[in-house]
């Protein structure tokens, strides 16, 4: 038994190492190649030793109307906006569901559960036509405002708030003369901080990575978000500039990788938490 277990453990460990390498290798190749010249890449596309063409690749990349800084700022605006609105209003809606007794409360909650699964992509034609009609296609607000209604986040917040927020605290604040909106902002929101932090990370990442909606709505280059910028790397202008392509990919992926590794503990815990509550 003991020996068998040891063999099993070693086999599992080796498999895990293999999978870990599989996760990491594409990004390692990407980062290393972003420092190598196109000629070097064409001779040997895989190398673990960085070269010295980082600045040169960057120059070629930026020379072809690729402006990651603009994409970065736009993506940041959208993602921060989406995260702020989604977390605040989802918590507010959850508060309405947990704290108050009103006639349609249960119906409203069932309704939220029912619409949780509807993907935004499916309704994009109507959304695009609506936005086009009011001539707002190149306004980033059209990517941000829909976040006020985030059904799955409301669901999560409600599940978290139910045991976390005691109605007695709300009651005693009322006796002290606090207004309802004040109680929500000053008492409920701080209690919900851990849930808000978890949801904020996922809201930010999914908004940051979203390609479909911006691709449909944005036609003005100055409004492009990062994923659209990335999609330009697929175009003909970079056809043989391998170094520049790897550079562009690295510029967009490396910040995410670094932030992920720094926050990984919370992110992994957040994924697990989301599934248990969901």
């Amino acid at each position, binding site marked *: 038994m003991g020996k068998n277990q040891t063999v099993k453990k070693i086999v599992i460990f080796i498999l895990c190492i293999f999978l870990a390498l599989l996760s990491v290798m594409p990004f390692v190749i990407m980062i290393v190649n972003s420092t190598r010249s196109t000629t070097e890449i064409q001779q040997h596309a895989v190398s673990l030793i960085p070269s010295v063409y980082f600045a040169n690749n960057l120059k070629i990349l930026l020379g072809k109307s690729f402006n990651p800084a603009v994409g970065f700022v736009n993506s940041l605006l959208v993602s921060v906006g989406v995260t702020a609105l989604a977390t605040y209003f989802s918590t507010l809606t959850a508060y309405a569901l947990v704290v*108050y007794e009103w006639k349609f409360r249960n119906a409203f909650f069932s309704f939220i559960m029912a619409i949780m699964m509807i993907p935004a992509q*499916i*309704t994009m034609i109507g959304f695009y036509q609506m936005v086009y009609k009011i001539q707002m296609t190149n306004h980033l607000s059209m990517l941000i405002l*829909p976040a006020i209604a985030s059904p799955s986040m409301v669901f999560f917040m409600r599940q978290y708030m139910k045991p976390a927020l005691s109605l007695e605290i709300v009651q005693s604040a009322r006796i002290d003369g606090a207004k309802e909106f004040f109680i929500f902002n000053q008492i409920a929101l701080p209690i919900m901080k851990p849930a808000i932090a978890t949801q904020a990370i996922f809201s930010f990442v999914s908004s940051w990575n979203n390609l479909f909606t911006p691709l449909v709505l944005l036609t003005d280059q100055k409004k492009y978000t990062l994923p659209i910028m990335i999609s330009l790397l*697929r175009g003909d202008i970079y056809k043989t500039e391998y170094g520049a392509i*790897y550079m562009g990919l690295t510029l967009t992926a490396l910040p995410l990788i670094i932030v992920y590794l720094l926050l990984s503990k919370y992110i992994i815990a957040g994924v697990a938490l989301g599934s248990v509550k969901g």
Partner: protein
Amino acid sequence: MKKKGTFSYAKYGYLFSLPFLLAFLIFSLYPTLYTAVIGFTDLKGIGKTTFNFLVNDPFANFKAVLSSPTFHTAFSNTLKLWICNFVPQLGLALLLAAWFTDRRFKIPGNGAFKVLFYMPNIITAATVAILFNALFGYPMGPVNDLLTRFGILSEPFNFLVKKDIAQNIVIFIQTWMWYGYTMIILISGILGISPEIFEAAEVDGANGWQTFWMVTLPNIKTILLFTLVTSLIGGLNMFDIPKLFLLGGPDNATLTVGVFIYNQAFSGGYLYNRAAAASMIMFVIIVVVSALLFYILRDRDEAALRKIMKQQEKEHRRKMKEAK
């Protein structure tokens, strides 16, 4: 007195859910209905917003989509790509989850493994798609470089022009991006099972394999259902990877319904009406499939229990009312 107090607060319930409701009506319900309406019109052409309803044959767009060979290809591709990635993804995730939660031995560094397995999921799908396009490049992409250097291939191979290989790479990318996520969810599900059940199984002399099939699996049924439904809905909407990896090619081999809808509406003839009809077809399929899955896999005992509890609650409320 107290009852009266809570009653007067009801208006805040409405007030605080109002922003959600308004945003939902404007940005979600209205576009959904509008999409459905456009499906019955002649709306096409770049920049057009005015339309007429199709009088002679209201379902013309739906018929056109359903009889379009390209849509058939896109639909069967979408199913194939989803099934072929979901099965190995779930298998691998279950296996890893079972190992990582095994009470008899601990794998060294499993925290670090979790972090690395999940990492591809957090990276922008657009970046991943173009990165893999570069990795499989011809004649001198990294994959070709490795295969020729280790003598597995005698000369570089153009992977991306072969239909099967292109599909398999998309399947690989999807699996690679999602098995870590599924694994973490399953681990948290397994950790949620009461340890006493495992102890009882151990006392009864069950081996690891038996414990997995008889104890672990039945107890994470709900989480498996959650994984299945979310993955299926995501899979039916698959867009970023197939759109940017090979633009749906070669020869439509990686064309998914999501890419089909996008191409119909935002390139070529700008057929918003066809795209809307295709969207609605997918909408109905998603609703039916997820309702069906919930129905089939719902925990019958739990449903019965809930019914009883509801009745008791009603009874309780009635009694309270009478007492008052």
